[in-house]
């Protein structure tokens, strides 16, 4: 089945892979090899770089490659999508770094991590090409998935325990040993420089957003969440009455967290730019949703994509008002099969039904 990849939003360093550096408020067709035949399996978004993983293990990158965050040594900017050598099964990206999981099950990081984001050990701030991360015996039960937010990385193992590295000052990596400041007083360290077993009880899922980690567990038949931002977890727990395994989906933005439960979408967090979805803006059934740094998109049952939140770079479509939901895409014969949101960028994958 032929697929199309459509994109709009912030594009100052070619992160949309269109061959130009203009922001776009109208959806643009991305000319990416493979997309015609294979549906992308995952996206990962940095400040100004984008990774796309395909089911066959190929990864393509576009955008800023100032520190090698696109996984390809050489050019400082990739204006269109270029293939990262190797065969990969998972990807993640933070501000100026990327993490890749190889077909052999090894993790590699590349780019810039001034506060430990690369996980390559104390003081390693730059890796201009994918460099293997050493875990010792910490991967125990095997890796379920890897996620990165702006400046921290979380690896979830099959038994629900978590490893992490990167910035930790806000509690996003749980309780970590303190260090002494210049006056001899204890303070949290700036970051963890290598993969560290986190102090959390096992989870069934977790999500990361800017300086926050949302942990999801089941207690009996109820889902409970824990977060280093109490404004998120407390109201969310008041909503959840079913087990997460019944198909509840969570996503974290930078200032918000969202949950899709019972075909309804609910948002929590700071709403200065409309980034917290307001339930009364769209009362129909919600098929799926994704959130970026400060905006989100939802897919309605009728194959229409709506966008809400901070849309200054065109990432919510033309003429968008931050505090009103906008219709971004009407699918028609092109069925929306996946969506993704980055830092003020929006990506829609369609499958041609005709």
């Amino acid at each position, binding site marked *: 089945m032929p697929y199309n990849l459509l994109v709009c939003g912030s594009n100052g360093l070619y992160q949309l892979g269109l061959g130009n550096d203009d922001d776009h408020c109208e959806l643009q067709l991305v000319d990416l090899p493979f997309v015609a035949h294979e549906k992308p399996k995952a996206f990962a978004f940095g400040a100004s770089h984008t990774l796309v993983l395909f089911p066959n293990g190929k990864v393509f990158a576009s955008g800023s490659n100032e520190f090698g965050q696109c996984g390809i040594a050489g050019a400082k900017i990739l204006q269109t999508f270029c293939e990262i050598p190797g065969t990969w099964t998972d990807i993640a990206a933070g501000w100026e770094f990327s993490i890749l999981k190889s077909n052999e099950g090894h993790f590699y990081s590349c780019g810039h991590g001034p506060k430990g984001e690369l996980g390559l050990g104390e003081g390693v701030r730059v890796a201009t090409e994918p460099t293997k991360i050493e875990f010792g015996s910490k991967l125990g039960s095997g890796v379920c998935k890897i996620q990165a937010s702006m400046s921290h990385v979380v690896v979830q193992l099959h038994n629900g325990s978590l490893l992490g590295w990167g910035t930790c000052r806000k509690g996003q990596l749980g309780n970590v040993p303190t260090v002494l400041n210049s006056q001899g007083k204890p303070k949290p360290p*700036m970051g963890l420089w290598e993969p560290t077993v986190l102090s959390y009880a096992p989870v069934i899922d977790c999500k990361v957003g800017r300086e926050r980690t949302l942990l999801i567990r089941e207690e009996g038949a109820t889902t409970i969440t824990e977060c280093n931002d109490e404004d998120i977890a407390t109201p969310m727990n008041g909503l959840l009455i079913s087990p997460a395994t019944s198909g509840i989906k969570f996503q974290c933005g930078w200032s918000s967290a969202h949950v899709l439960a019972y075909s309804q979408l609910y948002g929590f967090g700071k709403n200065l*730019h409309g980034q917290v979805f307001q339930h009364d803006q769209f009362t129909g059934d919600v098929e799926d949703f994704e959130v970026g740094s400060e905006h989100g998109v939802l897919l309605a049952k009728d194959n229409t994509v709506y966008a809400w939140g901070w849309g200054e*770079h065109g990432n919510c479509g033309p003429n968008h008002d931050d505090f009103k939901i906008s219709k971004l895409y009407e699918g028609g014969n092109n069925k929306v099969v996946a969506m993704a949101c980055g*830092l003020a960028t929006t990506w829609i994958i369609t499958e041609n039904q005709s």
Partner: protein
Amino acid sequence: MTSVYDEIEIEDFTYDPITELFQYPCPCGDRFAIALDDLRDGEDIAVCPSCSLMVKVIFEVEDLDELIQ
């Protein structure tokens, strides 16, 4: 009153000794920035060169010397 996107502690900014700028990620992909000299003068609003967002910097002037070492 200026409308700010967020309030960010100075410890979460990254300091570049060459440009003498403190920077923090903006959700558009660029960075909020404020000059060391502006902080010394008591300014506390860091702006993003690529969009309209700005953040308030939480800091004490007397702590700046330690932060830039």
